[in-house]
């Protein structure tokens, strides 16, 4: 008896026939990159505009102010008086980005992350045109559950990580890593096709853009 695998492959070959067409070269005459180089101030402005359009909150700061700005973002997301014990950072997030008392992810079972109030991660790349942050599962971005279960997510983006277009971003990413592309807080358009922010993923997305 032939296996399903063999049979499906045989069907495909039958369907395409002997004289199957050689595929024409694909013209990639769409934009490969933005005119502006990564980190260009205009790209940062565009990213901020797109993020805010999709209801993320954005704060900007210099390299020496990250921890304080993350803390301010958490004031915004959790309300002042939040407990540092409820904040968990991706293991590769530099200590100088972390608010005092916020611990690094210790690899606890994913279910326990649901009790964490907020998480802090870096990103692999950000796309200005679409307002997208990409997390890639490296220590800086953290594992996927960390940016998913806590209801408030703070992402720290460095200016040089901000590219203009989708093709530029994909070129910077490793396709075998588990990637999460985030464009605003979780949302749905399932009720009368009106966009509502906040369903299963973090309902609050706070972005800290670090400029030099």
């Amino acid at each position: 008896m032939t296996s399903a695998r063999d049979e499906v492959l045989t069907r495909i070959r039958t369907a395409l026939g002997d004289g199957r067409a050689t595929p024409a070269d694909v013209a990639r005459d769409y934009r490969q990159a933005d005119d502006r180089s990564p980190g260009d101030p205009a790209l940062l402005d565009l990213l901020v505009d797109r993020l805010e359009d999709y209801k993320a909150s954005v704060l900007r700061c210099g390299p020496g102010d990250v921890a304080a700005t993350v803390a301010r973002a958490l004031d915004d997301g959790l309300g002042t008086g939040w407990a540092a014990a409820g904040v968990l950072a991706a293991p590769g997030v530099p200590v100088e980005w972390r608010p005092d008392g916020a611990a690094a992810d210790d690899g606890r079972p994913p279910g326990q992350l649901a009790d964490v109030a907020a998480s802090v991660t870096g990103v692999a790349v950000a796309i200005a045109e679409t307002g997208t942050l990409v997390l890639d599962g490296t220590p800086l971005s953290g594992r996927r559950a960390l940016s998913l279960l806590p209801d408030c997510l703070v992402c720290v983006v460095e200016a040089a990580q901000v590219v203009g277009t989708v093709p530029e971003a994909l070129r910077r990413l490793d396709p075998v890593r588990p990637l999460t592309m985030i464009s605003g807080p979780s949302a749905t358009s399932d009720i009368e096709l009106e966009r509502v922010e906040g369903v299963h993923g973090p309902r609050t997305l706070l972005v800290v853009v670090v400029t030099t």
Partner: protein
Amino acid sequence: MTGTVPGPAPTFLGLPTAPRGVGHLRGDEPFPDAARTALRDGQLRANLGHATSTIRAKRATVVGEVPDWEQLRAAGKALKAATMARLDEHLLELETRVTERGGTVHWARDAREANEIVTRLVQATGTHEVVKVKSMATQEIGLNEALEAAGVDVFETDLAELIVQLGQDKPSHILVPAIHKNRAEIREIFLRTMPSVDADLTDEPRRLAMAARAHLRERFLRARVAISGANFAVAETGTLAVVESEGNGRMCLTLPQTLVTVMGIEKVVPTWRDLEVFLQLLPRSSTGERMNPYTTTWAGVTPGDGPQEFHLVLLDNGRTAVLADEVGREALHCIRCSACLNVCPVYERAGGHAYGSVYPGPIGAVLSPQLTGVEDNASLPYASSLCGACYDVCPVAIDIPSILVHLRAEHVEAQQRPTPEGVAFRALAKVMADPRRWRLAQRAARAGRLLARGRPTLPAMPPPLSGWTRSRDLPTPPAETFTQAWVREHGS
């Protein structure tokens, strides 16, 4: 219609189409009859009109922002055509890469086989419940019914799928399966079916979304098995991609120990770089967003992050029969954005249920009849005025009107016995191919003037013209045709 009669699957050029008696590709009644009922539902008409006009405007705005949209569209079309021409090779490469990365690849000839594979995989884990990401392929094969028959509880986690599942309803749209329900109807379903829902629930969309969050939260955290579809699978890297909005997809793709992904074989793309095209085309065309809130990609298994057991089920279920049709195979290029549904004047009025298949609207009218064999969905290719709006918005430029016309011909040519329509059209063709006969026929048409008895319009006509005269007048033919008059005035 023979839609629910189990029997051997019809074949196309010797290739089996999707089997009868399993899955959701065939309706219970022909489109015109189903549409007639739907058209009387004023609430449905209002809900659809509101939703489709909202999404049309959003799409137009974000597509208008992209200066190279037409180039992306052409690239998307070319990529899909190139992929289909080497589909076997790409699938084999995908299998190799996924396996290298710790995943297991299964092949399924049809819906029944895919359901058996998934059921077996779920049972092997010892669990009795699964969480699901919205997936057209698993709806197509009727996976939920198969799992439930095997004693497995299935929880749909996409908000619209949840609304459909709780309301014991059927999906009516590719992207927004509950598009036919408005907020008040959704509130009523939630109040009736969610055990711990707040009795003060209002119909504010935000409150409804929060109710769904609360309802599913615990299930996500305890689920051991998730089932998903896939928007794309990259052959060269073994990367799967799921595009979503709510985070329910991320929950399913991240938290359970075991992930089973069911994917139509046409979803493969050759290279990682190809996603740079589709990730631009898809969100703007579907939800009218520059980018959807969440896209997750993964390749096999990543230690310490996400499911540690991954199965990929590659599904045929009639797709190779579609591939065998040189005109119709373009329907396999579809990336399930549903832009064609949102602009279709027929879909907007009749709604998705009238199509009888999980694939409604213009793309459904070309895809469903090909997956099942055209005779099992013979009314669908005619469910279009051929206005062409679908072709214009399709992000991969599928020429849906031309495929509809092609399938009409396939249906006509499949008839073994003469039909009244066939007899009439063949006679008319003979007449129209011969100027002398044509002039005689035109003169005969003037006999219609007798019916009019001097009035400018004709009386109600018998079938099939009654379809016209029930709602529109038909002018009385003139005493003289243009060409006759011209000859009279100018000589021949």
